[in-house]
Each structure stands twice: as C-alpha cells, then as structure tokens.
C-alpha cells in the first residue's frame, strides 16, 4: 500500500473552507491590546516624533517611539541569510520610507488606528537614492553570500569564446521591484509572562527563526520564547525573515504590560517585509554557426538597502543549465534608500531565468534555429559549474512533452507570421530549473493504539505540507491516512528549518520518514506505544551529484498591437521534480507558480517616487497581480523521474520552479507574435504598443 504518489485531498481543507483554521491573528488571547505602526514619510534623514495628540486620544495606552522605547540588543545581521538588520525604535535615524517611527497601543484596533493618524514628526530629510538604473556606477561586490553559491564564478575564457563565436547576443534585461503580497497580512500577537517569558503567535515561515531573533533581541533564554503558527496564508519568502514588526509587537507588549496584537496594513506590506529587488542583468552569449554555445557571461546588479545586504542570485542558473566551457557570472549590489529586499518566490532563478532564457531566444533567432533545437544542442549532461553528474535529469522528456502539448511542431519560425482575427499570435518556450536543496530537520512521532501523531516545527504555507507529511508518515508506518495526525508550526515541537526554497518536502519529509521508519521497526517487533525522534542529516547519498529540478515552459499569447494588449492564451509546464508525493497539491503549486509568471511578465511592479524613494504603489489596485481573467488554461505535466540520490524520498520540491523560465516563455511568445523584444519587465501596454 502506498499513499505517497496519490492525489490525497488536503487534510486541512475542511478546516480552511469552514473558517476553523486558526491563523496567527485569529488566535484568541485574553486582554489583548492593539498596536498600529506609524511609518516615516521620508526615506533618509532623521525623524523627531510628536506624539502628544496621540497620547491624549481615547483608549491609548502607550505610544512607543525612539524616545521611550526600551533599549534592546540590535545585533547586526549575520546569523544566516534571512536574519535582518531591524529598525526597532532604537534611534531617530530613517533608512527608508515607511520605516516604523512609532507604535501606538490602544484598547481597540479603531482607537489605535485613529490615534496613529495623530502622530506627526519633524523630519530632517536628506536626498534619497530611489532607483537602481540611475545608480549603477555605485555597484560594489557584496559581502553577503547567496545560499546557493559564491557571488562570482568563472570557467574557461569568455572573451576568447565570444571572439570566436559566429553569433553573439549582448543585451541588458531588467526586472522590477516586486512585492510578495500573500493574502494573509503579516501579523504578530506577543504575550509576556513576567519579564522573561515570551509567547508569540506570528505569521511566519520559520518559527525557530523568530524565536532565535526574539531571544537575542530581548536577552531571553531561548527556551523562554515560544513561537506558534499553525497556518500561514501565503508567504512566498516574505515571512522567511523576522522583520521589525515582530520585535515591535513584543516591545509594545512589554511597555503596555498586556498582550499586543499587531497586523500590518497592505501599504505597510510594500515596505516592512521585504521585496524582490530590481535587477539589471547583462547577458553576453556567443555560439558557433551550429548554435553550440561558445561563451556565456551573465552580470547581475541588484539593489539593496543602506543598512543590510541581500543579493538576488540571478546568475546561478547560468552556471549550470547549459553545456558551455566558457562561463562567467557576477553579482553586484547598489545601496539605495529603500527597505531591505529579500527572498521572493524563486529568488534569483525567477529574475535570472527571465534574462537568460530571453537571451537564448534571441540567440536562436540570430542562429536561425528553432528555440527548442538551440536548447537541445546545448543540453548539459553534467553540471558544468561543479563538474558533477546530475542526481537525475529528465529535461529532454520535459521539452518533448511540453512541445507536444502546445503544438510546437506546427509553429512558424518567423515572428509575426500567425494571426487569429485581428490579433497576432505567438508561441514561446523556455527552460526552467531550480536547485533541489535540503537541510537537516528533526521530527518526532508517537504511535499508540493504531494512531500516530507526527510533530515538527515546519510551517504550512498553504502548500499542502500537512497533507504530504501525513502521506509520508502513513506509508512509513503502514497506517491509513486518517490514522495519522501531523502537528506543525510551534517551537514546542522538534526544530525544523525555514519552510522555503522548495526544500520542505525533502527536508521535513525526510525527517518524518526517518522517525516513522524507526518507529515502524519497533512496532514490527511488537511494541505498542512507540515514540521516536529523528534528525535527517545524512546527506551522503547526494555527495558527488548535482541536484536540480528541471522543466520546460511553453506559452501561447495573443497580442493586439494597436492597443498594446497581450493575453496569455495557453500555458504549458512540463516538470521533472523527482517523486511527486501528491499530484493534487503539486499541480496546485506549479499552477500557482505559472500564474505568478503571468503577473511577473505582464503586470507586477512596485514603483517608487524617483525623488523621495517612497512607494507610489501602495495597494492591490495599483499593484497588479494576475486575476482570473488573465489566466488561461494551464496544462501542468509531471514527467516521471526516478532519483535515487537526492534524498530518501527521491523528491525535489516544486514550490518555486513554476515561476522560473515561464516568464521568458511568455516574453518570447510576445516576440514571436509581434517581432518586438521587450527586455524590461513588466511588458505593459506602453512598451508593447506598435510604435507610431
């Protein structure tokens, strides 16, 4: 019997559709006060807060500012890539617009909101740097290292390769600031017990990360901090770090002497919880007359904040995706007066594969080759960066299955060759890849009376983690699904790493598998009440292999070039991600990623005022994500892939790969339809209209 591989319905589906699932802000907490953050109007300078009117407002308990906030440890970040430098009212310095300058605590949310509107500040503003393209000259080599590799790489001789090439493409591609915008806003409820014990209900991908940051900031014993989050209403990377509002909620609760609930507004979510930084990427590709790659150079500049570093690792895929002897990549940063960027669904790969796969499309036309044929001629049989064999790679099958599904073989090579009524029609494709990483995790299981309870701290982000861990545990224990209960999202449970980076199935799943396998052995020996805890940290099977998920994205678009309107009319993604634990939740993940690709390619951008560095995009009316009417039939194809090396489950994770490459597939389809190459996302009406 095997539950793994079956499309089990979500075990938490009923809780969610009936409203019974308790999200962080839903947690009933007695005597809770309400906190509202007041943000800075300026992006750079100092702010002297005047809270006299707010102090006198009805229901107000405290107004916390840099003048009266308790002093706490403000360690520089450094305990990992998602540990941020926070602005928590320790001084009057402002580093970005909307930075917290006060927190108003009141007996009701309405009182807190109305008092917050009465807080003013006297600003000493300094000129702010708002936009990357105007500041490229200030690019520097970052000290921060991306999680997936060094900032620079080089192999072979790129200049020589380019010199010898018969066909070259040298172009610059830009991707805008994007904001994650999960449906559930970030929310924290902080409850102190005495001065030295803190319980926090927080919307987070990483309860242990929040626990560590709070313990360090307030000087608490780690086991005196408990962080709980049973359900997360979407995250996409924005809840992977502990941001200022989490600490501010705890700070406010300490000052107020009561539990405090703090929920961010949508406008605050554009500034306080990270964003995908803008990137400017230059690609130099060279190929011989047969379209075989001779050289690849991918240089990335992205923005970061004045007080912290985040590197958008856009060139990582360029190191390994195609066979090429001469490859150079680099990542540089420019400091702007903006909030610190962060991981955003497919950090690096989503932005980088837009540039890489657009440039390859351009190279295919330069070589007069079919874009798919170009990729097949440069198929990498090993990882050229590490010189390791793949743990598995069924990318050729992905190319073929996707091509069949969209009807690639009937595609006319030339742009502008196909019309449907008054509309131009185009087909585009691109490769998708994302690393199949994993981290050590702990898990615990107790089996008694034919029922099992599985516990670990990883987060359910809406992706199906409860469900797939139930399936994995059921199989390992030889139990039915309904005999297994999974408990997640609590630092009282065994520690798991951040639920991010398409790692959760491999990471949490391997730990659950290990604990349950041990328990099964004891059950098989006749024990009746078994508790086992395991730590999955034996990654020896991966050693010597390069582990990546792969896919092929195909898009059909219709373009009304008079009015600049582009619509995606068909989207196909064929993916090889190792063992699919649950085709239902997996399909949903990949489909969601492909919908993200539509938004990223055609719609999404967070715009800042170029003079003030303040967000001009502050709500979901201006920040356009794809709506139902933008989303066509999406065909998600799972390609069978057996991977004996990647982990005990043979599973690679697929939370991110849907958005990878598909952006370029859509942009390439627009080129095929119109003959217009837009290298600056998003491809909006103004960029796509036929010139006069």
């Amino acid at each position, binding site marked *: 019997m095997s539950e793994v591989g079956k499309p089990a319905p979500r075990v938490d589906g009923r809780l969610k559709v009936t409203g019974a699932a308790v999200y962080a802000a839903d947690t009933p907490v007695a005597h809770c006060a309400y906190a509202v953050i007041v943000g800075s109007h300026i992006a750079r300078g100092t702010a002297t807060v005047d809270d006299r009117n707010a102090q006198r407002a009805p229901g107000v308990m405290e107004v916390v500012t840099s003048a009266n906030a308790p002093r706490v440890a403000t360690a520089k970040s450094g305990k990992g890539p998602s540990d941020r430098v926070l602005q928590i009212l320790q001084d009057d310095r402002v580093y970005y617009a*909307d930075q917290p300058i006060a927190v108003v605590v009141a007996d009701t949310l309405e009182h807190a909101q109305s008092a917050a509107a009465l807080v003013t500040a006297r600003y000493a503003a300094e000129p702010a740097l708002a936009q990357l393209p105007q500041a490229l000259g200030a690019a520097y080599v970052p000290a921060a290292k991306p999680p997936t590799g060094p900032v620079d790489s080089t192999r072979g001789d790129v200049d020589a390769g380019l010199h010898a090439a018969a066909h070259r493409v040298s172009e610059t591609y830009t991707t805008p600031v994007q904001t994650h915008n999960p449906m559930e806003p970030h929310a924290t409820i902080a409850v102190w017990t005495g001065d030295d014990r803190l319980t926090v209900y927080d919307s987070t991908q990483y309860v242990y990360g929040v626990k560590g940051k709070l313990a360090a900031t307030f000087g608490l014993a780690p086991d005196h901090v408990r962080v709980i989050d049973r359900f997360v209403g979407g995250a996409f990377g924005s809840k992977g770090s502990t941001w200022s509002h989490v600490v501010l909620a705890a700070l406010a609760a300490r000052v107020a002497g009561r539990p405090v609930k703090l929920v961010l507004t949508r406008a605050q979510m554009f500034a306080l919880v990270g964003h995908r930084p803008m990137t400017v990427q230059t690609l130099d590709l060279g190929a011989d007359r047969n379209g075989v790659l001779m050289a690849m150079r991918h240089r990335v500049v992205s923005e970061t904040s004045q007080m912290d570093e985040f590197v958008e690792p856009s060139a990582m895929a360029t190191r390994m995706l195609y066979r090429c002897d001469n490859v150079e990549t680099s990542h540089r940063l420019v400091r702007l007066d903006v909030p610190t960027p962060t991981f955003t669904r497919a950090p690096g790969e989503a932005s980088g594969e837009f540039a890489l796969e657009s440039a390859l499309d351009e190279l295919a036309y330069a070589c007069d080759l079919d874009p798919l044929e170009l990729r097949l001629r440069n198929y990498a049989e090993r990882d050229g960066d590490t010189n390791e064999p793949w743990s598995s790679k069924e990318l050729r099958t992905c190319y073929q299955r996707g091509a069949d599904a969209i009807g690639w073989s009937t595609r006319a090579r030339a742009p502008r060759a196909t019309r449907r009524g008054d509309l131009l029609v185009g087909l585009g494709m691109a490769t998708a890849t994302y690393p199949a990483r994993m981290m050590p995790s702990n898990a615990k299981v107790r089996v008694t009376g034919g029922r099992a309870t599985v516990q670990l701290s990883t987060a359910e982000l809406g992706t199906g983690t409860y469900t797939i861990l139930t399936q994995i545990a059921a199989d390992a224990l030889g139990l039915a699904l309904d005999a297994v209960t999974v408990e997640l999202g609590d630092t009282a449970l065994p520690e798991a790493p951040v639920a991010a980076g398409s790692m959760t199935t491999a990471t949490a799943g391997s730990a659950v598998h290990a604990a349950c396998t041990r328990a099964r052995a004891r059950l098989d020996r006749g024990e009746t009440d078994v508790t086992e805890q395991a730590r999955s940290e034996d990654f020896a099977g991966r050693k010597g292999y390069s582990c990546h998920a792969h896919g092929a994205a195909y898009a059909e678009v219709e373009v009304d070039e008079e009015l600049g309107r582009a619509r995606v009319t068909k989207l196909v993604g064929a993916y090889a991600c190792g063992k699919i634990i649950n085709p239902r939740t997996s399909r949903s993940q990949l489909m969601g990623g492909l919908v993200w690709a539509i938004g990223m390619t055609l719609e999404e951008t967070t715009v800042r005022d170029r003079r003030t560095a303040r967000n001009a995009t502050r709500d979901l009316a201006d920040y356009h994500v794809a709506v139902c009417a933008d989303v066509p039939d999406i065909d998600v194809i799972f390609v069978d892939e057996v991977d004996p090396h990647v982990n005990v489950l043979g599973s690679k994770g697929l939370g991110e790969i849907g958005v990878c490459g598909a952006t370029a597939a859509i942009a390439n389809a627009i080129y095929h339809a119109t003959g217009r190459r837009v290298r600056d996302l998003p491809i909006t009406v*103004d960029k796509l*209209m036929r010139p006069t």
Partner: protein
Amino acid sequence: MRPFSYLRAADDDRAMRAASEPGAMFVAGGTTVVDLLRIDVLRPALLVDVTGLQHGGIEATPSGGVRIGALARNSDVADHPLIRERYPALAEALESGASPQLRNMATVGGNLLQRTRCPYFRDVGAPCNKRVPGMGCAAVDGYARSHAVLGTSDACIATHPSDMCVALVALDAIIHTRRVTGERTIAMTDLHALPGARPEVEHVLERGELITDVELPASAFAKASCYEKVRDRAEFAFALASAAVGLELTGGTIAQARVALGGVATKPWRAREAEAVLAGKPPAQALFERAAAAALAGAVTRPDNAFKVELAKRTIVRALLRATGAKAVHP
C-alpha cells in the same frame, strides 16, 4: 480611520440638512468613501448614509429614454434590458469597471462622484493639492503613468477614474438633484469641474445637494454606442485609456456622433472636436483617425504618460470601428 458620526437618513430633507453641515458627507455603497476613510484621506465629521432613501429603480421614461435612480447598483444597471438594448455603451462601461463584488455595492450616484486613483492623493505621506489645498502636487513632476493628459493644470493632473461617467457624458445624460431650495437638473458634461487652481473642487454640486436620478434621453446615436477600455490587465484595473462613442448613421453618413474619453482626463471628457470632424461624413478609418487626433490635440504630457496620447487615439478609432461594425485595417 478617525472617529466620525454616522446618520442613516430617513428622508431626503433630513439627509440634505444633515449633509449641509461642515464636515458632513453622503455615503451610499461606500466603495470609495470607506476605502478613503481607512487610509485617512477622508476625515469627515459626519457620514450621512442615503441608502435608505427612495431613489432606486430603473425605468423607461415617456419620452423614450430611461431614468436610473441614484441608488441603483452598478451591477443592476449593467444587467438591465433597457440599458443593454438602448445604451450599450453604458452597460459595457459599467461591466468593465472594478469587480463584480464592487459593482454589486457601488451606486450610480456614488460613482458619479468617484474620487481619483492618483497614488499621491491616496498617500497622506505625499503632498496633494486635491487632498490638502495649497500643499503642492507630487504628481506633476512625479510618477505620472496613470495621470491625465487632458484638462490638467499646474496644480493637479489627477485622472477621473470612472468608466460609467465616460459613457454618461457621451450619452448626454442629465443629472437630477435636490437641494433644500428645490430640484434642478445638470447636464452630465457640466457636473464635473476642471482642476484649475482649485483641484479640491471636483463638481458643481452644493454642500448637501442630493443626486436623485440620472436621466438618459432618447437618442438616435445611443443604440450604436460602445465602450472600449485599455488597461493593465484583463479585468479589475482602471483605464489607461477608454472611449465611449455613439453614432447615428443615415444614408451612409454620420448624422451625428458622440465621443468621450476616460483614463486620460481630469474629468469625464467629452471630445466635441472629434464629434465635429465626424459629423456629416461617411464612416471610414481615416476619418476616425482624424477625429481621434482632434480629440487629443490639446494633450499635455509628462514622460510617464506620454504614451497615452497615441493610446487614446487608437482607443477612439477602435471604438468607432466597433460602433460601425467595421474591421480595422492594419498598417
């Protein structure tokens, strides 16, 4: 949001009296007002809820037109057979606006007075003359991609966001109102004010003046009317440019035309220059292009919104082609 008083008005007189006080304002569907209360842009002392008044309904008038009550919901108007048959531009405009949920809440009277989507108007951390007279305009030299190219002033370039209003100015709608001093009618084209030096004044209504009905007169051009809208996604986005057009065709010529623009002007924009170009001539794409050029002749652009001039012209041409049932000729 700040504290305010709330009155559910029982009749017109009490509504008008209450709303005549300083700091008072009407609220109906709330789709603009509640939104702006929450982001601290509107700070009324009193909200006068008019949804209990008797100003709903949609009915044919004896003279062959249609009367729409001010409290009729946008979704009901868009669905109504009389509107769909006689005034297709209005049905299309309403259906292209917002989302089904919002259209179910929004009223016709409220939509007439919809506030701009200028991001600086909506951000209390940025200067805006419309929000605080004399404060300055962040948009004139700022991020102005969504902003107007027609009817602007040095003080304000905010776009009027309504789709419905664009159709109504094209359809020669008449606004019926009540004041304490009596009833009056206002031509739809006269309802909204240009920003000039006082962008906080957005319409000609007096304090406490209550919109009761919108009257659509019988016309020979309304049946061949349509609404074309270009936006940044397929649904649920404000217009980058839109056009409502109506044509009366007799004997192969355009007897009269109506052309109105949205998304590009500080008020729902009636393009009489374009109508003059069209009147009396046989319909043809080249003629439509000349009319569109006339409509945009006075455009004043910023770097971010310069594309709107050409886009608006093409939108007009597309709408006129659709109204005549003709196909576009591709260059």
